[in-house]
């Protein structure tokens, strides 16, 4: 039972990550490869504030969200001057800078040794310790993020992002400011990515930089490319497929080393086949340009 609940927690974490990336990739049409950087910043902020300052969860979570929003705002001013490949390369650059900093700033992050003993959240003296309790807690966070993203995605702001995505020059003639709207999208996206970061750090109770690599950012982008983006259904379909597939392969009886490579091969083949035959992904609303 705990195994199924663990998968449920991971589905929740990646669901939140996919929703955060969806705002930029699906609504803004900007392929970002930096989502794991914000995910990592959220996780490290929570771990350091909880362990070093002993701050409670209801302070560390908003702090992680605010820090990621601020970094997203600063990074957005630089990266959103670019589109297409240059934007992708800028996000890869940012992702690598965050990873190298987390890995090498050993005085603060303990580098490759990671941070262990991260406390689980507790409310009014009641700790969320068991896997079922943590599953329920993730479910609550996921529902909150889903509700927030639903509000954002049905707002005039999302419509203006879609207009910019489809024809930036035409959208500008309607008075939509690309810089302002894209930076807002980057800030929302970064802030939301902090939530699964906090959730992951407090669930595993140990983090190191290898959980927040470029490969992780590529994986998050693949969730949206396979499942689809530009709506809520697409990212959810992508998460279900990409997270449940390895678990299915586990039951086929393949050795772990083979299963891991086989899973990646399936992802890679699906990526090529889906962008060729079904550019909107399994359930998305936007065909990537």
């Amino acid at each position, binding site marked *: 039972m705990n195994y199924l609940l663990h998968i449920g927690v991971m589905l929740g974490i990646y669901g939140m990550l996919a929703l955060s990336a969806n705002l930029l990739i699906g609504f803004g049409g900007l392929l970002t490869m930096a989502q794991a950087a914000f995910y990592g910043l959220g996780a490290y902020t929570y771990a350091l504030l909880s362990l070093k300052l002993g701050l409670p969860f209801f302070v560390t979570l908003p702090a992680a969200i605010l820090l990621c929003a601020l970094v997203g705002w600063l990074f957005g001013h630089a990266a959103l*001057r670019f589109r297409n490949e240059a934007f992708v390369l*800028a996000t890869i650059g940012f992702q690598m800078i965050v990873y190298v900093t987390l890995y090498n700033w050993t005085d603060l992050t303990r580098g490759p040794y990671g941070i262990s003993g991260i406390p689980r959240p507790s409310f009014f003296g009641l700790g969320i310790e068991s896997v079922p309790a943590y599953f329920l807690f993730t479910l609550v966070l996921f529902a909150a993020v889903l509700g927030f993203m639903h509000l954002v995605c049905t707002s005039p702001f999302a419509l203006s992002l879609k207009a910019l995505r489809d024809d930036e020059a035409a959208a500008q003639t309607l008075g939509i400011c690309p810089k302002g709207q894209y930076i807002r999208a980057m800030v929302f996206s970064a802030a939301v990515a902090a939530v699964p970061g906090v959730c992951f750090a407090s669930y595993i109770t140990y983090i190191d930089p290898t959980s927040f690599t470029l490969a992780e950012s590529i994986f998050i982008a693949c969730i949206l490319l396979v499942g689809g983006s530009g709506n809520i259904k697409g990212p959810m379909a992508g998460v279900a497929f990409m997270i449940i597939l390895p678990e299915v392969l586990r039951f086929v009886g393949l050795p772990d080393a083979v299963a891991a490579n086989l899973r990646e091969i399936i992802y890679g083949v699906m990526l090529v086949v889906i962008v060729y035959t079904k550019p909107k992904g399994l359930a998305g609303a936007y065909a990537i340009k």
Partner: protein
Amino acid sequence: MNLFLQLLGNGLIQGAVAMLYAAGFGIVYRSFRVFHIAMGAQFVFSCYAFYLCAVVLKLPLAAAVPGALALSVLFALAIEWAVYRPFFRKGCSSGVVMIASLGVMIVVENVIALAFGNEVKTISNQLEPSVAFAGLRFTRIQLLQFVLGLGVFASVGVLVRFGKWFKAVWAMGDQPELLPVLGLPLARLRLMVMALGGVLVAIAAMLISWDIGMDPHVGMHYLLLGSVAVFFGGTDRYWAWGAGAMLLSILQSLAVWQFSARWTDLVTFGVLIFVLLFRPQGLFGVSKRLEEAK
């Protein structure tokens, strides 16, 4: 002072090899207008093709090198036939082809990991003889890397500058639909570009894997360095890719001298962000009018 000169020398040698894989990335990027992520796959494939010929099949070096080069060219052509050309014919945007290219990279990396294992493989287990030069020390492979890297890059540069086909290749990057109108063989030119890119990356991959070995996941590292070098130098000029690669390698070496080897990636990507912000056309790139840049 000696340490500085030694690191500068190492930077120049790394730069000479980096010029090759940067040019391998740049020539496909410039002529197809596709962010050629599969170059990472090409790099890994070439390393393992060399390993297959030299270690598994135990061929002498004189046969292993051309054998690996031939396999690498076939691999590059296969990417064009199986992936890039169908997407091009369908009229897909560069973003879509880039994602397909990422798919190729993921598949190839993992197929190689399944076939050869995830551990590091080496071509030679023997200690390389070194040569002392003005108080500095370089291995035989390093000297070969420097001479071959500069030599091959310069030779291809002369071809690019004076070869009539390369004028068409450059034009292909701007308006591919005009080439058939002018009676130029678009499909063959695309194959030529892929083959040339494959050769450049394969030579770099063999030189590097002979020196420090390989694992199935090295491709992304060299893809990032190559693409950063191209954007750093300027995407529209062949010589700028080489200059970008050389400067970046020297900067990385000097970062080791001033800070530590751990921060070299920070220097690389810091430089990238700096150049994108303050000189988006690259250090030696040409500024374009807005309508040209589209």
